[in-house]
């Protein structure tokens, strides 16, 4: 089985979730089975995963797994269906707080029921009070309609013991909040009561997760082929997956620069997320990066013996590759677009500056920014963009369009795409841009943009943080219709690198490697060490 390991599959997805989903779809399209493995407890995991196209039978959440709730027939649980153990309770709706107050006949508060007003008032949690008005327990409900996490309160109103239960009411996971010798109140341990009756205790959730991986490895064990664990978030298993009791093929997938300063990949202090993995590099069976450039840098810096694979995290669908190409002449002259959150690391104020310079020669030029504004630091990134607009007098030229799903329409109409990020892991947006024939301009930023954009092929890669150079590159294209068409055609053609076939081929190489090394890994197990001799006889 192929396991793609992540923490959750939230509604608001980052590049890692998008990469997983693309891969998941790719594997499904090629009839190679896989599972999205989510480690963190999430009461709406199934709602979000289903919405993202993951069916329940291909989703394994660690808590679901131990709660015997991997597949549960969902039902919408309403407050009125909950048993409080008190006869004839009254429900008073408080719509402003999205909750009911539940009282006994004598007027005593029995519970507060918090509901999801956007989902038919589905019960999210119940805060339960005893006969002496103590809040003694809070139950959190899974979206599928059962109490999943029960939090027991301490006498000083903190969360004490937390337990997860099966839909039938068997407690399977407990975690404890206790005082240290120094008097700090911390999460001090985990206890697992397994289906088969084994009781185990773990100091940390990492140890529990490691045990969970062992269980998955057992459940899907096959001597024919290895289980492949692709670790998409390092903290979930960079340690644990190296300590499985039985062998598997463990893949560390880099989704960002391994170096803290991506522009100094050979010497910068390591990205903290990957520090452990980079130091244990040869213990993984494979390391995947999304770009050849990063693979090259990892190889140069660490000189690992383990296999390095370059596998793009984006896929350009055949639908787009086969779509009719829009010639530059039919595009809106001078229309620059960018699909990115308006956030500090995207540095879009630089893109505004580049367009500002171009605007002086070509008043027709416009810039449309598609993406949410990041609220961090009181919308500082948006403020910077607005300041740059004022500085260059671009009111009416630069427009913040917000989020859109009309990607084809927007990208088939525009002419150019700009990227001025401070750092990138891959950047699906610029890959989509070239697949729509947009002429791409990017800073020389690691990793992704400076590989997806090929200088003088599908646009230009300009020096990092040099918006004047980007402006000059745009001006050249605007002055020269032939050059523009050559780059646009180059964009369409260079997107072939990310065709489903090519990306699948890259994964196939990794899976083939897994299969190729499996007999040796299997033979290294004491239980199988003598098998080869027997076969030889």
């Amino acid at each position, binding site marked *: 089985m192929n396991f793609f390991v992540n923490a959750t599959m939230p509604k608001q997805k980052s590049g890692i979730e998008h990469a997983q989903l693309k891969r998941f779809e790719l594997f499904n399209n090629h009839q190679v089975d896989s599972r999205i493995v989510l480690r963190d407890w999430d009461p709406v995991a199934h709602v979000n995963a289903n919405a993202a196209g993951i069916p329940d039978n291909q989703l394994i959440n660690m808590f679901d797994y131990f709660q015997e709730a991997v597949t549960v027939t969902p039902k919408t649980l309403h407050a009125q269906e909950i*048993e*409080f*153990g*008190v006869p004839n309770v009254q429900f008073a709706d408080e719509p402003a707080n999205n909750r009911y107050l539940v009282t006994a006949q004598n007027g005593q508060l029995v519970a507060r029921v918090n509901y999801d007003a956007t989902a038919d008032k589905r019960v999210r949690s119940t805060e339960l009070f*005893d*006969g*002496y008005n*103590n809040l*003694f*327990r809070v139950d959190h409900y899974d979206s599928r309609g059962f109490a999943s996490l029960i939090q*027991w*309160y*301490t*006498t*000083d109103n*903190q969360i*004490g*013991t937390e337990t997860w*239960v*099966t839909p*039938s*009411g*068997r*407690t399977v996971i*407990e975690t*404890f*909040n*206790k*005082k*240290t*010798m120094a008097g700090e*109140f911390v999460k*001090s*341990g985990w*206890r697992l*009561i397994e289906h088969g*009756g*084994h*009781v*185990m*205790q773990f*100091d940390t959730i990492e140890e529990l997760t490691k045990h969970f991986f062992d269980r998955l490895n057992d459940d899907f064990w096959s001597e024919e082929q290895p289980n492949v664990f692709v670790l998409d978030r390092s903290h979930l298993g960079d340690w644990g997956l190296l300590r499985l009791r039985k062998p598997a093929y463990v893949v560390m997938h880099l989704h960002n620069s391994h170096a803290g300063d991506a522009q100094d990949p050979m010497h910068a202090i390591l990205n903290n997320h990957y520090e452990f993995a980079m130091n244990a590099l040869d213990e993984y069976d494979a390391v995947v990066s999304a770009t050849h450039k990063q693979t090259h840098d990892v190889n140069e810096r660490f000189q690992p013996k383990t296999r390095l694979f370059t596998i793009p995290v984006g896929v350009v669908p055949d639908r787009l590759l086969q779509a009719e190409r829009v010639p530059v002449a039919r595009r809106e002259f001078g229309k620059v677009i960018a699909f990115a959150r308006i956030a500090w690391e995207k540095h879009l104020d630089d893109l505004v500056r580049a367009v500002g310079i171009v605007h002086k020669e070509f008043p027709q030029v416009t810039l449309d920014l598609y993406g949410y504004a990041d609220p961090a630091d009181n919308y500082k990134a948006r403020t910077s963009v607005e300041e740059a607009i004022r500085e260059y007098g671009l009111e009416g030229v630069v427009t913040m369009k917000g989020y859109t799903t009309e990607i084809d329409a927007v990208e088939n109409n525009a002419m150019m795409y700009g990227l001025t990020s401070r750092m990138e892991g891959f950047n699906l947006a610029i890959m989509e841009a070239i697949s729509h024939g947009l002429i791409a301009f990017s800073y020389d930023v690691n990793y992704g943009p400076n590989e997806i954009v090929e200088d003088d092929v599908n646009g230009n890669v300009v020096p990092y943080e040099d918006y004047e150079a980007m402006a000059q590159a745009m001006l050249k294209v605007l002055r020269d219709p032939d050059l523009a068409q050559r780059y646009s055609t180059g964009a369409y053609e260079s997107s072939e690198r990310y065709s489903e076939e090519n990306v699948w081929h890259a994964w196939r190489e990794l899976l083939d490697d897994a299969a190729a090394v499996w007999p040796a890994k299997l033979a290294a197990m004491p239980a199988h060490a003598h098998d080869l001799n027997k076969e030889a006889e």
Partner: protein
Amino acid sequence: MNYFVSENVFTFNSGTEHAQAKRVQLFTEQGQSAQYVTRNYNRFLARDAEAIGLHAEQVLNMYDFFQGVTDVPREEVSLRLLPQIPLDEYHIEGHGPNYSTINHAGRELARINVMPATVGLVNDIVYYDRYGNTTARENFDWRGFKSSVDYFHPDGNLAVQKMLNLAGETVIEISHMKVNGTLYPTMWKLLNYKGHDWRFNTEDQLFLFFLNEITAEHPGSILVSDRRSLDHVVADVQFAAKKFAVLHDIHTPDIKNPIRGKLYDAYLNVLERRVRDFDAILVPTPEQQADLQKRYSGVDFRVVPDTFVPQAQLAASRLRLPDRQAGNILFMGRLSPEKRPDQAIRALARVVKSVPSATLTFHGYPANAEILNELKALANQLGVTNSVIFGDYITGDALAAAYQRAQVIVQTSVAEGFGMNLVEAMSYGVPVVSYDITYGTRELIHDGVNGYVVANGAHGEMADRIVSILSDDGVWADLSAAAYDKAVTFNGQAMMAAWQQALQ
């Protein structure tokens, strides 16, 4: 069904529990259905019930009922074979007979405490975190299954108790929270019982729910309240055909004035506040019935037997003097001030002057440590240390053997409800020497026939009577035969008839 309602069967029981157990045995012997019903959570109930001669089907505990474990045979599970411990990951390390630890990579994860008086059976497993805090405690039933799990507050006090069914699902949760600054169990929650949850502020409310359930399930049931602490619960039960309360003791500390003396507080419910909720109040002796009738003229008091002698016991051959231990004087009962065990020692001191070989054997648990020390000091002071034997609380065969060895039994109590141990002794042919006390003495002992009654507190006279029995084999033989005969009157058939009449 006849339900006899009590708190518990204890490891050391008082006369109340023994009387209740005897009654269940009587009903069973006479073909009537009866159960000893208990409220308290007790992982040792199966052991303790067996010790007082009750089988699993004769006992019904509330927690067992909801846990679905009323009829689980005992399986001895050694801690080394406990299936829940993955021995390919953890080591079990022994630390002597009382406990072992579960170790992971050298670190202690948990302590397995051995069940008392067993070799390596699991009593409980206490798990702790890396800071040494107890995180969870798993409690095992005497019968070998995991019965409950406890969680703790940060200060180490009990926070949550979860009682489990055999599938490991929680069926009852007890949470402990503060009321006015003090930690109490504040909620009993019954989960998924017949598809519904119920919550209760007190254990007695849950017990009432339970009694309503079992009486509703068995229409026509009779409830008998045996414990004064539970009279108010039984009084509230709705579905019993009839409800009674049995008194096991005198109702007032003012022994000389049972008609007007101030009532024990514990008796207020059964005799005053809730008396109308009972069909009748049952007492062991006509004397107490008469006293109470004078006190509460409108109440229906009826007399019921406090004990009986089983058929097998009556059929056993009678033991003669040579079969016994010469000079063996027996004292059966709790060592507590109201039983006045010191007076038995004083009597013995006088007996040994005439019969140097005489010994006094106590069988009963001391109410506290001091009283035992005081009694030993007294024996020492009176020079009879070597003649006084402080035996254990015993039941079953050990108890029978004690009666078979005895030559005479003494009773020095301030007061008694009845004196069932005297009947038991007589069923083994042991003559009785007792103070003339309220209640039961006059009914049980015919002076000079099956024993002697001496004035209350007259331990010198008691000694003289004992000497006369021990020093004349003929006297002993006559008294013993009469004791055997007296015991026959407590045969099951007669006692059952009396009960049936009382429960009309």
